């Protein structure tokens, strides 16, 4: 089977998970059942197969262009979700991750695969730099989603009239602590991604830093997360402000990724 067939299969499995979790949210039973977890696990396995198949087909690490970028981002998001779920059993995250993974894989299947021969794509920095960045994005996405959940749950509790989401979303404390831990993990990967990016730039172009928009936004995101983590650890900062800052940080991350895949296309390493 070729990579596209695997990807379509992945799309189907994520669709099953997304539908299941949404139906459950509406009927208010337990959010994740063995069904949706199985769908996510199977989807993730097939997705991994799709990526490795694509790697052999295209001849370089499959992260160039929208097709591969979206697919890989979905993969990293699902990985971050599964890791968080195994550790915390917080199922509300599925409410966001399943639809997002489905949407990203849908985008991947609908967009044409970029085929490009470029010696720079043969560089060992490509798989290392991009994998680190994507793992970071996955963890930061989890942190972002938990931050949003925190704000929603806070609003529900303040309103004193609970609605659907009050029942589905975990406690404030859980949202805050999971978000806090995910930020640390995501920040770690982000830092390593920036370091490898700098080294790659040096190796490819002879300069460490070019100050393009992507590098700017990555730096801004990095600084925001430094502030967030220090504030959390030094002053016991958390809750609402941490959630809001985490959302701003994630916006910068999204911009970095979008710039790389959409605007600059495959030209990023050489740009």
């Amino acid at each position, binding site marked *: 089977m070729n990579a596209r067939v695997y990807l379509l299969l992945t799309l189907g499995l994520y669709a099953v998970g997304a539908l299941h979790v949404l139906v459950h949210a509406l009927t208010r039973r337990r959010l994740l059942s063995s069904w949706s977890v199985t769908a996510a696990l199977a989807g993730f396995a097939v997705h991994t197969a799709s990526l490795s198949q694509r790697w052999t087909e295209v001849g370089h690490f499959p992260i160039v262009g929208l097709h591969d970028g979206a697919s890989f981002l979905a993969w990293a998001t699902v990985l971050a979700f599964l890791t968080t779920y195994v550790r915390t059993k917080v199922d509300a995250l599925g409410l966001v991750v399943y639809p997002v993974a489905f949407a990203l894989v849908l985008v991947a299947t609908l967009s044409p695969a970029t085929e490009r021969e470029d010696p720079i794509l043969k560089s060992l920095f490509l798989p290392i730099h991009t994998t680190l960045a994507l793992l970071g994005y996955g963890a930061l996405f989890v942190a972002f989603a938990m931050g949003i959940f925190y704000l929603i749950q806070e609003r529900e509790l303040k309103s004193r009239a609970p609605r659907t989401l009050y029942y589905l979303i975990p406690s*404030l404390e859980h949202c805050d602590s999971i978000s806090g831990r995910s930020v640390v993990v995501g920040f770690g990967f982000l830092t390593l991604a920036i370091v490898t990016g700098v080294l790659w730039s040096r190796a490819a172009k002879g300069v460490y830093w070019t100050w393009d928009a992507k590098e700017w936004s990555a730096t801004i995101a990095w600084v925001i997360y430094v502030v967030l983590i220090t504030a959390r650890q030094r002053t016991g900062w958390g809750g609402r402000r941490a959630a809001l800052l985490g959302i701003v940080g994630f916006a910068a991350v999204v911009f970095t990724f979008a710039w790389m895949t959409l605007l600059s296309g495959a030209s990023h390493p050489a740009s």
Partner: protein
Amino acid sequence: MIVVVGVSHKTAPLEVREALAVPKERMAEALACLKSEAHLAEAMILSTCNRVEVYAGAAEGDPADAVASCFASFHGRPMGELEPFLYRVSGEAAVRHAFRVAASLDSLVLGEPQILGQVKDAYQAAEEAASLGGGLNALRNRSLAAAKRARTETSIGHNAVSVSYVAVELARKIFGSLKDRNVLIVGAGKMSELAAKHLVRNGAFATVLGGRTFERAEELAAALGGRAVPFEGLRGELAKADIVISGTGATGLVIRKEDVEAARQSRRRPLFLIDIAVPRDIEASVRKLEGVFLYDLDDLKSVADANLRERQKEAAAAEAIIDEEVRDFLSWQKSLDVTPMVTALRHRAEKIRREELDRARKKLGPLSPEQEAALELATTAMVNKLLHTPTTELKEMSKSGRAAEAVELVRRLFGL
């Protein structure tokens, strides 16, 4: 046939239910009376504050009316007085009713957990009074199992609907685990005690702020395994507290916005304030402070209402489970019926008799009407006598709950 006759919160006001309640000490008497007067094979009485119901099993016919009049006479009331409140359900409807009651789908507070134990106890009492037979015993096992299934597979029992439990659940939604959280109790009233007990049971540590009578605070603190502090310590304790339950009888405010603001200076963690006093103890504007969640009695009640609506949604899922279990039970019950087997046996014997009779006639040639009658009589008697023991035994075995075994045996012995 199983019938249920009774009154419940749906059909009768409290006075009527109280008047018809069967106290524990009269249970055996009531059961004996029902059995002898209404000619019941089995009887059980479920008597709670929301319902008084007789579950009865009769060998033949529908005993609902007999049960109703017997029930009236037991309480020394004319039937006419009871009639408007009484419902009677029999057969499949009675089975469904019994299942729904046990699963708390017919309860005043949907999904309330006590009913399961009450139903269990009622069957137990009937068993002790030797008024439980195969029919009701099977109903007991299956309906209790179905109720447990409905409870574990749906969240009909989740989301508290009483004010003090609502407070605990809200605390969980804020803090996650309640372990080692500090609860400050201001004013040692009944309801604050109840809510505090739930919190302490979940691992929270209680501090009781004394009012005019410090002994009362000390008593409560001892009961909660916490400590008592004089009222002057309010601000200091407020700074340490995660959860505050205030329920004093004071006419003015006890906790003001500036108290809370002062307490919040040193910490950022959420603060959950529960004001169960009327008039209220805590200044309402503290609600606007970041990380402060204030709930008064009305708020807790509205959350309880919302929770009840959640349960009602879950009830549909629970009803589906009960439907399935009732269907299973009914088809199982049907399999116990040995009548079709008895009929088949008789048909078979009759067919053999006729065939053999015809064969004998061919050999014997023409017979006189008297001879013909004698032959008919002899063969019929023979068949009847032979089948008498198997049929009665079949019915006996089915009564003692071995129907399937009996049917299988007869099927094999007679090649049916």
